[in-house]
């Protein structure tokens, strides 16, 4: 990331801090957030290590968005602790999170559709040249760098001048990831990157997640698709109704268990019971409650059940 010189402060932050290899980059301890009298998130523990993909799964309204908003600096936690490199922090703007190397790729990708690809790539961290009254954008260098970085991630675009809104969903996602990686992110938060994508495009995005991990980043991968999560994840946290339901590493959980947790195990059984009251629904084929909860009932080490 030496090529970031002159582009902003994140590169510099990276260089003078060499954190312990095994220490978590980002840690939440018993963290929570209330919006007025609504407790959106409580008692959440999360650790993000370098070279690991931490998957946060959860249904709609489980608190996934609140969680990433706290880590990315859009909102502040109201309970517990939030640590970066072991230091308690409280970000008041996304800029502060960025300066600590925490980059977020949002669901809407944080791109400005009508602006050209290269302007989007450098938005908020533009390269400039010249002294103040005539300090101007270094357009040549920005275009060249954006092109190189995108090619490094395997994205080939004919024309960086085209508005980013003309790219496909997968391409835009990849541009956003490439941007975060380029700007020296140590922690990459991906908010449902595969939600709106087809099978092939999802595969491309998952490949970049793996590539980002190979580059030494800690990745927080938010999704509600356990299959996608299991493809690349090293650690899985399932959120349910604002709190952690499952917190397990890859060795301790199978895809079936993960899927069950996502589907809401016991709730499904209850739903089956309800459906039994409705004529025309054949419940014989649906699994019993014991089947659904069985794997979870025998928790192994490292798995915390709430």
């Amino acid at each position, binding site marked *: 990331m030496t090529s970031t010189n002159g582009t902003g402060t994140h590169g510099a932050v990276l260089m003078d801090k060499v954190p312990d290899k095994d220490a978590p980059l980002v840690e939440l301890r018993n963290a929570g957030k209330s919006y007025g009298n609504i407790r959106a998130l409580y008692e959440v523990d999360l650790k993000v290590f370098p070279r690991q993909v931490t998957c946060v799964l959860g249904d709609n309204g489980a608190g996934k968005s609140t969680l990433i908003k706290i880590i990315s600096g859009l909102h502040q936690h109201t309970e517990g602790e939030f640590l970066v490199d072991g230091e308690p922090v409280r970000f008041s703007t996304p800029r502060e999170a960025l300066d600590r190397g925490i980059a977020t790729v949002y669901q809407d990708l944080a791109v400005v*559709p009508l*602006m050209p690809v290269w302007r989007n790539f450098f*938005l908020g961290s533009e390269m400039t040249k010249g002294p103040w009254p005539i300090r*101007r*954008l270094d357009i040549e260098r920005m275009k060249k760098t954006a092109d190189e970085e995108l090619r490094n991630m395997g994205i*080939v675009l004919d024309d960086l001048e085209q508005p980013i809104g003309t790219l496909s969903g997968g391409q835009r996602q990849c541009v956003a990831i490439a941007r975060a990686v380029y700007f020296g992110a140590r922690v990459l938060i991906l908010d449902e990157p595969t939600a709106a994508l087809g099978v092939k495009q999802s595969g491309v995005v998952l490949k970049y997640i*793996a*590539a980002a991990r190979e580059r030494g980043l800690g990745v927080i991968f938010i999704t509600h698709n356990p299959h996608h999560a*299991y*493809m690349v994840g090293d650690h899985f946290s399932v959120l349910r109704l604002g709190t952690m339901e499952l917190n397990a590493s890859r060795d301790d959980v199978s895809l079936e268990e993960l899927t069950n947790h996502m589907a809401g195990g016991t709730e499904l059984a209850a739903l089956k019971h309800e459906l039994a009251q409705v004529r025309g629904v054949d419940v014989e084929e649906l699994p019993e409650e014991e089947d659904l909860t069985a794997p979870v009932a025998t928790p192994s080490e490292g798995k915390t059940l709430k």
Partner: protein
Amino acid sequence: MSMAQQAEPAVTTPPASGPGKETDGRTAERPLALRLLARPEVGVFLGAVAVYVFFLISAPPVRDGSSMANILYQSSTIGIVTIPVALLMIGGEFDLSSGVAVISSALTASMLSYQLTLNVWAGVIVALLVSLAVGFFNGWMVVKTGLPSFLVTLGTFLILQGANLAVTRLVTGDVATDNISDMDGFDQAKSIFASSFEVGGVNVKITIVYWLVFAAIATWVLLRTKYGNWIFAVGGNKDSARAVGVPVNFTKISLFMLVGFGAWFLGMHQLFSFNTVQSGEGVGSELIYISAAVIGGCLLTGGAGSAIGPVFGAFMFGMVQQGIVYAGWNADWFRAFLGVMLLGAVLINLWVSRTATRR
């Protein structure tokens, strides 16, 4: 654990960087003429040429050099405020108070200098501060409350309109301010804001120079500086811009203050060319500025536009305003013309933005 094996290839094959310059190959280059036509500035330029040719034919006096200087002068008085209004529009907001703010600024300078018998420069400076403060207030209200700028600036518009009339009545007992032409510093200020010079026997007003210089600076800022990048970003997608670290509030507030500056500049020009200010004027000008910006290719919803387009937009308006007079028609037709041009421009803008975002 079958899934784990599936994941392996994805991890072990990081995206390869292609050798040499390969291209995607799925986008075909469109012909130059088509690409140029899709640029809003080119569209409005052609529109301005069409209007010019139309009046060249239908109104013979327009062919005279001095009429041209007159048309350009008329355009420049519209254009000087249109430029910051256009930047603000690209930044996703608009300002209904810009028309009366011109008069407020001129009234402030005039009454302050006259009533306190100060050097006119004191009034000029205070007027600048007042104009910037009005701009700051507009911007601050918009970013802090999240209300649409339409509502906030409609409020400011009404406040200023009322205050212009009421305060002038209160101070001077009349609807206009007193003549300040014999006060200290007047000649100096007039030479800056309202002088003129000869070019080949034609009397050219200095506002034309300011207009073009401001447009050139605005174009450079918009396309070649960080701040310009931010203007497009806050207008295109405010939340995205904030998320990547663009100072959204600063950008928006400063844009409103820039409109305040434009209003002040035109206000000073009017004060020093007419020596006195009519307190009821300015109402309706804000819509002309906004229309000129829209005709110039600025997207009303923000995120797209230029500073050059509004120059042609202002020229079209100035041309029509004067051209109707030279053609000997009733001047009432001006607004009708304005409406037709505005609708045409909006339809073209709509088409452009749809083409640009089509997936």
